């Protein structure tokens, strides 16, 4: 990925002074990154297995004398972390599906089918990018507890999180731009072969768009996993809250070592997913950076 010539050239690298300087800056940066990348996670795990007295008497000890694993099961059952994690999985799964569905149908309609006034709709979608939903949380909340025309109260249901998740203008933009670049002849050929519009989307466009669908999925999952303010507002029933909202409430009640164990459990799924798919995730982010 790294090109051979950056602002440090091949010739520079052959000069001993420059080489030593570059090497030491790189080394120091690596140490810094280890400290800020792995460090906090390590310290959290250490905190979770350390008895409370040791935690306050020897705060700088790198590892406890007698590590305890009991905090994890206490946190999982007594603090209901398992239950809250399940809620989060439900929230993330639904939000992911809605966002993928909206982005691909909207992108397909606006890029391939191109109805009259499609540009107006696209413009109206893009305009919402400048109005982050968190700023409008009050009117969004009022809308969700009494949906216009339908008069449904979605408050305290996951629909209140799933449906607004579909209003991500950036993923619609990503999908449309990607579909724009697909060869048009292919669509005509499929039409000639008798494919209807739905088949055109599911058999031709979507299978060719795996990279952008992966990026949209990544953005959708990360956003809904990390979101805090909207679930805090929309889900007030403690039984239904996702883990992030629940943790913020638990922080004021639970003993510190149990809370830290709960935090480890909450951070484990996203970190594990990142460790397993990191190459893909990092490449996907570069993709959005270039595209967006």
């Amino acid at each position: 990925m790294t090109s051979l010539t950056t602002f440090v050239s091949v010739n520079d690298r052959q000069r001993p002074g420059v080489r030593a300087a570059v090497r030491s800056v790189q080394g120091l940066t690596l140490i810094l990154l280890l400290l800020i990348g792995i460090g906090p996670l390590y310290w959290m795990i250490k905190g979770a297995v350390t008895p409370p007295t040791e935690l306050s008497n020897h705060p700088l000890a790198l590892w406890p004398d007698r590590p305890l694993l009991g905090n994890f099961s206490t946190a999982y059952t007594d603090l209901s972390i398992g239950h809250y994690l399940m809620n989060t999985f439900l929230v993330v799964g639904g939000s992911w599906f809605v966002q993928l569905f909206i982005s691909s149908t909207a992108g397909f309609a606006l890029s391939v089918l191109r109805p009259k006034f499609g540009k107006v709709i696209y413009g109206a979608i893009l305009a919402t990018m400048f109005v982050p939903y968190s700023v409008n949380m009050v009117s969004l909340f009022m809308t969700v507890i009494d949906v216009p025309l339908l008069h449904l109260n979605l408050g305290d249901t996951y629909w209140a999180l799933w449906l607004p998740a579909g209003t991500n203008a950036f993923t619609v933009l990503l999908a449309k731009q990607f579909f724009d670049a697909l060869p048009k002849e292919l669509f005509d050929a499929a039409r000639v072969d008798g494919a209807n519009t739905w088949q055109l989307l599911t058999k031709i466009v979507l299978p060719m768009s795996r990279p952008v669908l992966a990026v949209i999925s990544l953005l959708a999952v990360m956003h809904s996993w990390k979101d805090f303010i909207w679930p805090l507002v929309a889900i007030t029933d403690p039984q239904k809250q996702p883990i992030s909202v629940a943790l913020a409430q638990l922080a004021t009640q639970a003993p510190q070592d149990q809370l830290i164990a709960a935090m480890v459990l909450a951070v484990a799924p996203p970190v594990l997913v990142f460790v397993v798919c990191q190459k893909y995730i990092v490449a996907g982010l570069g993709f959005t950076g270039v595209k967006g």
Partner: protein
Amino acid sequence: MTLLTHPRRTAAVSKEPAKRAVDRRRGGALRKQLTAWLFLVPTLIVFGLFAWWPIVRSLLMSFQKTNLVEPATWVGLDNFRALFDDPLLSTAVGNTLFFVGLGLLIGFPAPLILAAVMSTVRRGAGVYRFLVYLPVVIPPVVAILLWKWFYDPGSGLFNSALGTIGLGPYTWLESSDSAMLSLVLEATWAGMGGAVLIYLAAMVGIPGELYEAAEVDGAGIWRRIWHIMLPQLRSVIGLLLLVQLISTVQVFTEPYVFTGGGPENSTLTVLLLIFRYAFQDGQYGEAAALSFLMVLALALLSAVYLRATRSWSKT
């Protein structure tokens, strides 16, 4: 292998009188329009109900009084008047600008510098990228609770570590002078990874010939950074500046979880104030009025950005 029922195909190949063919083509065009709009229906419903309508409603609500039970009544500019009479407004705006400013000062150059160093790494570049992005995948609430523990004045990591070299103890979150700085440090750490990777991708995309030509002309490493790399990154830097401004203006989770807006309202931000108005005091009108002003500010920011980038692309 064509289906003869397909309207466009039939129209194109049939030997029917021209008038009928035109009729069919018109019907086909109408059907195409209908199909296209059918695919837009879910989008229109979701954006209509949960994006466009709330934006309009926010504007309407800022001129209304409502308590969720009785029908809303129009009150003109009363909400704005009440808002400007509230001494907390200027506190919240000041704090938010302070957070944005500190965030720029600390959080803006850091990813650029890190990415520049990382762009020179040949072996093990993946390790650097993995480490730099790791904090980003930690859910914000977990990250904040972790740092709250680090900031603990008694047994926290920071005071314990600094104490061993004879510094501190510092108050971090407990004093109104340092609380906001503590929030910015955490937010910078949590948000830096994404910007680093985007800068890195842009740096890798700079053609090597530019650097080689500069080297032939006798430019040293610093001049190559200043005269080649930074100008090449101009549009990415501008975009990330806008992204950072927009996201830091909306800061909410940090003050809500770290301090609840304290001590002495020193970390009360605009979004936290909106939240308090609406969900603690039930003053939905004032909350909506403040939201509306915030939207105006963000729109202004984006307009300035678009202006600036347009003039860049001209030069």
